[in-house]
């Protein structure tokens, strides 16, 4: 993945854009759901992950956006805005500079592992129920408020595109004995 936007951005531009991005989604979930910037989110995810996400990822991207913005979309929108305007070689530094590293890591972990972290207070949210099913039996009784890890798509996790020599477990890998040789 190297589709650099080819233009650097100034701090002033980014802050202005981030503010605008944040403003349209405030105050929280209702507006976030009303305007899911899925194309921009996929573009930013592609740049963060180093793996191109084409239109076939639209549904997954929309689901992931909803799951990651259950508590509001402001930081996510700001992160998307920033990532889509910074060259790859400056991405890590700029994310740190704008305090968006944690948000980016959350997105990356979700895409690479096909897994998200969900707080029990969101378990009855229709978005969660539709994408992840009933998670109530995953709660640790000793820590009832702690978030649980939930898989939204094992097979589409990006590790399997990163590790081109293998496939998701429980997927046929090839003809019998393919494992004898190094991958083509």
């Amino acid at each position, binding site marked *: 993945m190297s589709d650099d936007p080819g233009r650097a951005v100034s701090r002033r531009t980014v802050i202005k854009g981030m503010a605008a991005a944040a403003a349209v989604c405030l105050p929280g979930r209702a507006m976030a759901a009303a305007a899911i910037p899925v194309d921009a989110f996929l573009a930013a995810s592609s740049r963060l992950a180093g793996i191109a996400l084409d239109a076939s990822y639209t549904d997954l991207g929309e689901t992931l956006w909803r799951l990651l913005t259950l508590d509001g979309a402001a930081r996510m929108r700001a992160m998307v805005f920033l990532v889509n305007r910074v060259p790859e070689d400056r991405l890590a530094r700029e994310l740190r500079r704008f305090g968006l590293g944690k948000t980016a890591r959350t997105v990356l972990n979700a895409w690479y592992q096909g897994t998200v972290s969900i707080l029990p207070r969101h378990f009855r949210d229709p978005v969660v129920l539709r994408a992840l099913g009933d998670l109530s039996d995953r709660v640790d009784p000793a820590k009832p408020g702690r978030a649980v890890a939930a898989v939204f798509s094992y097979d589409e996790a990006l*590790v399997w595109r*990163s590790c081109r020599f293998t496939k998701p477990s429980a997927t046929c890998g090839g003809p019998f004995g393919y494992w004898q040789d190094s991958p083509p």
Partner: protein
Amino acid sequence: MTMDLIPQETIDADVIIIGSGVVGSLMAWTLSSRGLNVAMLDAGAPVDRVAAIERFKRNPEKEANSPYRMMPWAPVPNDVDPFTYYVQPDHQSKDPRRQIAFKGFFMRLVGGTSWHWTGHAERMYPGDFKTRTLYGHGVDWPLSYEDLQPFYHRVEETWGVAGDAACTAPPRDTPYPMPVVPRSYLDRRVGEAGLAAIGQDSRPVPHARNSVPRAGRPQCCGNSSCLPICPIGAKYDASVHVGMAQTLGTRVHANRVAFQVAVGPDRKVGGVYYRNFDNGADGVLGLARAKIYILASHAVESPRLMLLSAGKCGVPDHGLSNSSDQVGRNLMGFGNTDTLGYAPKGKPVYPYRGPVSATGNFGGWRDGAFRRERPSMAMFILNGAFRPAIGPMLEAQAGIAAGLVGTALRDWVEDRTARQVHLHGTIEVMSDPDNRITLARHECDPLGLPRPKVNFRLDDYTLRGCRYAWETQIKIFQAMGIETPGMAPVAPTDANFEKFIRNELDPRYFGFSSGDAVIAGTARMGADPKTAVVDPLCRSFDHPNLFVVGTANYLTTGSASPSLTAAALAIRAADHIADTFRDA
């Protein structure tokens, strides 16, 4: 016989089998094929393979039990924390000579633990049956490799076992039913290092996994998930013979938890009480009655039922078939040595391809005169590398935590994953009467039945084998140029070995544990009723119509995967039952 419980339902048959795993299903099939009326009870539910795969994918931990829905009435050792079921008061001990956490996993489902077994179909070695005579350790079996050989062959034919002369295996008088499952690219690269470091190349392993389409099951296509579940049924599991037995008339009753055996004044077993959870959590009381009873519930639940039955319904106070005081004793499980690391940069080995547990191993220490000094050991090269199913994800987590993004992250995850190497040693543990399963009287399962209490430790003989395995693994790693980022190389010194067995070395690269693939020895076989629970045909010395069959009968385990020998004992016992049934 005092039947002091009033059942609400009954099951009547010629033969009642408790447990529907590898042993129970083969016995049911054999006995049904001989015209006997068989009913098989299992505490757990049937498994829907498609639903299990979906559950596996949905579970973020991807542990051995992840695909399976355990029923609350049939609890098992949890694969994250087995001590939610086992009660082992000192399991956090750091000194394995005093106590070591027993991590023997099993499942209570129709088809049993075979659902998540490795698929390794290994015969024990001739020397495994006479270790006392040959090597001065352990106990001799009352039968020999030659006695079992025809039954090994029958199991291999009906399971479908793949292998060839290169496999790590004892001498055999018949060819394998299917061509060998070849070694992986990873196996061959590690084998080259083995050849340089210890004079041994890696070798293939006999597998109960279709290398060609056979018996209505497809050829393996390397799904890399066989532990915990083969999505296409290319790997054998006991659901195959559950189905074959049903076709011949065996009735399979799932969700029936046996909790009490009843014995009559003639010392014969007269019934098995169970609770039926088909229609909810209340558990309707039932009674299963037959001429012959078979306990085939592995090496924890069989002795547990025998001890639970003590002092009630005509069963003596010392328990069912326990005049020898050997029920629950002599628990055996492997010692496990794990070493992990990364092949050198630029030399990927490509794990996560092919059967996930192992297609290759170093096989030079299964049997021989060295067993005078140290036990049998096997060493496997794990295609599942650091963590089957989620190893690449853990690399991604680490890369993301390190601040990598973009193509740097993508390439880092691939590079690190492609270089993972994991060697897994399994070391024989000889029987010790104080290593045992008893009942935790005050810690009960959801049915109010005492949970199994475990006492387990390793002796110096076993630890010498663990030391040898650990040092050998280090030698192979050194020959490969294995890297351990963030940890300095560990020299195989006395002090470091002590740290190793106390699990004080870096847990990313070293692990020491016990249990693993074998749970055995808790209803031992023998020729003398004073020192054994069952005779060489797996028949109780105390109750002439009771058979206790499986790894519980083992006197030694060697270091092979245990299932094939249990299956051979099962067919041998089933033949005897069918041959003598009219006299029963």
